[in-house]
């Protein structure tokens, strides 16, 4: 498996069309999140939300390496992972706005995006829990010999919670087909991960505790992420068990909508902005001989889609109040009595 040493040899998808897909997806995630941010600023998004601006290469690189029937489990920072699996923009944006045509009918909001149809099995907002669920999905794949793999994204901060430990150990002991991807963006909410973690690499330095290889990848390089993810997915599908991947990255903005992110040193922010994954991937494609016109077409296509989704979301009505009493039980209702 790829480790820190091999990062520089990142190759990504070989097929030029897939490479363009990888770019398109990153642009889509970027522009969607920027639009989401604008809509917050216009006070159209209620509640909280957590953007992946700056972290797009991870969501895109992993998603394109996955099989359509592989599962994604994500955190409250899940817009990118939901879109990356193919959920259309309109319902996702409408969910942020709490509209009737929202992906969850307005019942979950930004933190709980789910598209079972796309095998995006949910965004979970209490740190740690979903690692155990991902292990369970992987168990189901193993049991049914379906060849599916569960991919579970979580932050650096999640590596210090108990459920992380339990999920990793169980996955290792049962040799489950699951890929745990730690998006290490160096911060929890406002606290640097280094100040509350006993080891420098919150995920990779724990891998050995579960008999796993440490894997660190440049989370701002979509090709490198794609390579590492492909290797980990192969390993899982071969029956060789779980992987724990630490993808190092940085969020461009604050932790959540309310946070300007001012606790971070200016130089640090600047250095990471200079390593923007989307710009970098664009330059790489140009360097490989892709026509700029092609990239511009991708970008304007995405812009048009984001505009259309914005309109469709804003124009939609709010959900009707009856919805509060549906969907507790599989029969569609919520009755606790006869």
């Amino acid at each position: 498996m790829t480790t820190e040493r091999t990062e520089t040899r990142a190759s990504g998808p070989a097929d030029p069309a897939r490479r363009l897909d990888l770019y398109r997806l990153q642009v889509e995630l970027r522009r969607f999140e920027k639009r989401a941010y604008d809509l917050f600023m216009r006070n159209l998004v209620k509640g909280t939300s957590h953007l992946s601006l700056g972290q797009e290469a991870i969501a895109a690189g992993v998603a394109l390496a996955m099989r359509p029937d592989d599962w994604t489990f994500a955190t409250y920072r899940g817009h990118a992972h939901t879109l990356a699996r193919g959920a259309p923009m309109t319902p996702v944006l409408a969910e942020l706005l709490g509209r009737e045509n929202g992906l969850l009918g307005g019942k979950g909001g930004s933190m709980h995006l789910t598209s079972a149809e796309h095998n995006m099995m949910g965004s979970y907002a209490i740190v740690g829990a979903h690692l155990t669920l991902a292990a369970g999905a992987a168990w189901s794949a193993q049991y049914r010999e379906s060849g599916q793999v569960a991919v579970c994204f979580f932050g650096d901060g999640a590596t210090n919670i108990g459920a992380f430990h339990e999920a990793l150990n169980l996955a290792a002991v049962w040799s489950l087909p699951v890929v745990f991807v730690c998006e290490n963006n160096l911060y929890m909410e406002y606290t640097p991960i280094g100040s509350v973690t006993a080891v420098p690499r919150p995920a990779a330095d724990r891998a050995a505790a579960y008999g796993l290889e440490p894997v660190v990848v440049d989370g701002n390089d979509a090709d490198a992420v794609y390579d590492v993810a492909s290797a980990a997915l192969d390993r899982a599908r071969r029956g060789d068990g779980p992987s724990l991947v630490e993808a190092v990255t940085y969020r461009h903005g604050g932790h959540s909508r309310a946070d300007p992110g001012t606790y971070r040193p200016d130089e640090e922010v600047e250095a990471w902005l200079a390593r923007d994954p989307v710009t970098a991937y664009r330059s790489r494609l140009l360097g490989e001989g892709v026509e700029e016109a092609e990239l511009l077409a991708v970008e304007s296509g995405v812009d048009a889609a984001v505009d259309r989704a914005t309109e469709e979301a804003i124009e939609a009505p709010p959900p009707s109040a009856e919805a509060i009493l549906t969907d507790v039980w599989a029969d569609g209702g919520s009755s606790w009595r006869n």
Partner: protein
Amino acid sequence: MAELTRTEMTRTEMTLRDAVTRGIAQEMRRDESVVFLGEDVASAGGVFKATPGLLAEFGPRRVRDTPISEQAIVGAAAGAAMTGLRPIAEIMFSDFLAVCWDIVANQIAKTRYMTGGQVTFPLVIRTANGGGLRFGAQHSQSVENWAMAVPGLKVVAPSTAADAVGLLAAAVRDPDPVLFFEHKALYPVRFEVPDGELVDELGTAKIVREGRDCTILALAAMVPKALVAADELAASVGIDAMVVDVRSLVPLDTRTICEAVARTGMVVTVEENPRLCGWGAEVVSLLTEEIWADLDGPPIRITTPHVPLPSAAELEDATIPSATRIVEAVRKALT
């Protein structure tokens, strides 16, 4: 009221722990998607010996020993349930539900709702609940009220072996998450159980003794105590008490309960959970709201006092509701 599906009516005597094995085996034979996991459940057959033989019959692929990782146990059950399996997870003592309460109460219970119904959790969490074995405060609690308080969980607690088989089957077949509380003091008790496939119905209470003077509502190990108390009341002071086995807290069979109470006008709940916010409180508030006019006097609650459970035999016996306490409370209320 519950209807049993019985393929034949011969009966066999068995303990509650045997009934649990039988219920699990019945469902695993029927449906390949039913899997079973927990600590020491496979090779050892469970620390209460409620699951021996399952490993031998179904193999290590379907019957799995786990690490001591309650969050991973119920989390794995949840993840498997949402992707096609129907897991039965054992949490060895119900007290340990606290260790994985986030997965149970915040993830399993809510995710269907939060996703607008996109995912379901057809799973059962079985657990040994309740006191009487002198295990002390961390291994004896009755926490059925914890589960009842969480929207999205179904909650069942059988008082007989036949109910254990039938309700366990119903829980496994139910598409929603069911917390299945087996009372550890009932494990060694012997019952007559009909042979053949048993499938009961969730959300159904059962009148287990008819009576005219008052209605005693009880659950799990409190049911046999209520029956003893009712006999004693009849014999000693001629009070004819009806006893209702509540069986299912969610869904709650409010129809049977309200009718049963309305018929006598007098209700006593017997709860093993500690007093505050117990299931009896909910039932009392329901009764006063819905059949106020039918009540001849104040509902009475008999509960474990609001204290942790002590371990010494004499202390534990003084803490958990006894038949004697029930007799005294009913007598006082009716005279």
